[in-house]
């Protein structure tokens, strides 16, 4: 048994932590870029993105076979815990993990050429999969793909597509067979920005970054735009979601660490009734509870990351559902207690805790919330 990071991952962690600390100001500014930005804005700092790729942050998300130097569960958690600690809003999750996994899994030789651009930081991607009625269910796809002799035509709407405006290429899912809710029949297509019939209604996100509603109005694509086999994308989507959930769990853990650190510091410095408020036992016990929950969350992330490459996808998904359910609960407790123990100052946009609380809480709305994870866990344990 060994719970230490390998030397390579330790080095990556150190250099990433140092970089993020040195760029704290720029990172903080980029949390507001989405909100202040015009329609079509990126919502993140392109310079930070470039430097992250130079540091190898994106390469660490891919195996050597895919042109990277990592790609395993603990590579993802090493990167994302640090990004979470720093509150970074750069779309490493969407471009790197979610879309990167799909291209690596499903891409043919030509399509896999995107991976090199991606790892070098020259490509932005977004997955346009969820729809207004799909909630957290990957099989609920109503958008349609119709194939003729020389073209594919997409029509439908996609909901809350994170990073859509910045994306050079969108990975769009659409149904080629079966009814909405069927796992069979879903395909993915590569749709370059600016393709006729593709339109975006962009908006900022509560926790930083941007997303868009995507309208597909008779989007004509060449036959070569299909990613993977016709109608067979569901399993790859499940795998990409599994990898993204491990990354997101680690990112949330990192944000929780920072929320706890800020609260600890505040309890030591804030004076009321002539003494630091951290000397009140009522608050000390609550701080202790936050620390206990934080260690639970850390172990849950380790469980999930350790099973990401499990030969059994059921075991993989059970561990991930467990981790995200636990983090959903522990995260809510930590975010809310951190705000409460700070008092009014935590309610301000200016004080950094607010951003971390938002990252923690809003993470619950991606890929499945706390209750959905509980449901998945129950289903998988019963199976």
């Amino acid at each position, binding site marked *: 048994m060994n719970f230490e990071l390998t030397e390579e991952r330790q080095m990556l962690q150190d250099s990433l932590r140092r970089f993020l600390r040195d760029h704290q100001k720029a990172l903080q500014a980029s949390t507001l870029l989405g909100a202040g930005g015009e329609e079509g804005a990126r919502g993140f700092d392109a310079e930070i993105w470039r430097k992250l790729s130079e540091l190898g942050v994106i390469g660490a998300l891919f195996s050597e076979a895919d042109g990277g130097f990592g790609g395993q569960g603990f590579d993802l958690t090493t990167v994302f815990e640090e990004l979470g600690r720093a509150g970074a809003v750069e779309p490493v999750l969407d471009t790197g993990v979610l879309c990167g996994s799909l291209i690596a899994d499903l891409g043919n030789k030509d399509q896999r050429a995107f991976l090199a651009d991606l790892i070098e930081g020259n490509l932005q991607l977004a997955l346009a999969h969820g729809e207004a009625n799909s909630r957290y269910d990957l099989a609920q796809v109503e958008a349609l793909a119709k194939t003729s002799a020389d073209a594919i035509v997409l029509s439908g709407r996609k909901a809350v597509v994170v990073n859509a405006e910045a994306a050079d290429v969108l990975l769009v899912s659409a149904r080629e067979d079966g009814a909405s809710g069927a796992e069979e029949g879903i395909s993915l297509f590569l749709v370059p920005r600016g393709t006729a019939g593709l339109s975006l209604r962009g908006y900022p996100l509560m926790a930083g970054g941007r997303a868009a509603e995507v309208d597909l109005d008779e989007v004509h694509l060449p036959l070569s735009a299909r990613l993977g086999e016709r109608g067979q994308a569901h399993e790859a989507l499940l795998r990409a979601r599994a990898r993204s959930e491990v990354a997101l769990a680690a990112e949330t853990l990192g944000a929780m660490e920072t929320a706890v650190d800020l609260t600890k510091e505040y309890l030591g410095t804030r004076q009321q009734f002539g003494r630091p408020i951290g000397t009140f036992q009522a608050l000390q016990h609550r701080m202790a509870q936050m620390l206990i929950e934080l260690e639970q969350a850390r172990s849950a992330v380790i469980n999930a990351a350790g099973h990401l490459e499990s030969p059994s996808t059921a075991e993989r998904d059970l561990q991930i559902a467990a981790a995200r359910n636990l983090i959903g609960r522990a995260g809510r407790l930590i975010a809310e207690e951190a705000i409460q123990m700070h008092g009014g100052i935590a309610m301000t946009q200016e004080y950094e805790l607010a951003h971390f609380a938002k990252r923690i809480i809003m993470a619950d*709305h991606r890929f499945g919330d706390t209750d959905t994870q509980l449901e998945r866990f129950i289903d998988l344990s019963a199976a």
Partner: protein
Amino acid sequence: MDLSYSPEEERFRAEVRQFLEQKLPAEMSEAMRLGRSIGKEGHDRWHAILNEQGWLAPNWPVQFGGCAWNAVQRHIFEEECCRAHAPRIVPFGLSMLAPVLQKFGSKAQQDHYLPRILSGEDWWCQGYSEPGAGSDLASLKTRAVREGDHYVVNGQKTWTTLGQYANWIFCLVRTDPDAKQQQGISFLLIDMDTPGIEVRPIILLDGTHEVNEIWFTDVKVPVENLVGEENKGWTYAKYLLTHERTNIAGVGFSRAGLEAVKRMARAQMHRGRPLIENPHFAARLAQAEIDLMAMATTNLRIISRAAAGQAPGVESSMLKVKGTEIRQEINDLARRAAGVYAMPFASEAVESGNEPGLGPEGSEAVAAQYFNNRKLSIFGGSNEIQKNIIAKVKLGGRA
């Protein structure tokens, strides 16, 4: 023991309901229901409608223009207002300052300020908290030094709600720095147009501007703006705080919130079925409703005692804690119900209703409300302070 309202109370409820159906502008009710801002104009308009009806100041004695409703009637009125999604009556002048002036103010102050509160000519804000004086309010440092016929005020107030709209502020200031903390504080009325006052916005975590910092630099305040006696301000402030705690349980808000969650959960599909049928979500929703049902009765027990002339004691602290916990839980349920559509930050265009919302109806404001209402357990005496009060009273002096 009888849980039902009397026939007169039911008649009163019908009268209130009819008034709201006729006079509450539909677009205002709609905006409130969807969690949109109605701005100063909206508040002013609703204020004027209520004033015309004579129902603006339910808690004021008749001689000052109030309607002399008892606690049960006030409760019914609040309940009906929430049910109809009426805007909240901005409380600073009407429910906070006015009772203090009516009890401790001079005849001249009553004659001058009270009619202007009713007419809406003056918009008051509250100058209590300071950066270093939150839960420990008595440690406030803003200084007022008497020089002839005026005070000179220097210092800083914070968390001043809607101070950007106010033309007057009532302030707690330190007039005797040598006295024991609570004993050197005075209650001053200050015209916001006086030179030396600066209002700086504080943007909250949901992007809204509802609170401010207010800076005082050598602000000259006429001595006739002192309420009551010098150095007795803490007594008046405590009196005011008991009024701040009326409707502290927020039963009506919680009921309206719960209805909104149910509406959304009926429309949102989860695994091919409406979310409201999902056992995990339904269980959370049911628990919140069960808690609310009991708290509503606790609230009525206290109101009915108040109507019989008994002042509420430690129970209002209990209501504040439970009431805010329930409201915050309902906000949490609302964001869960919205699913992925909790993630967007509603732009001003969507906020103001000029652009269609993105997700299911009512979803655009849920995340902002969830974060914004974290304030409920912080302001008006944090829940920790309320628990100190409960423990102190119930455990016999050991807090």
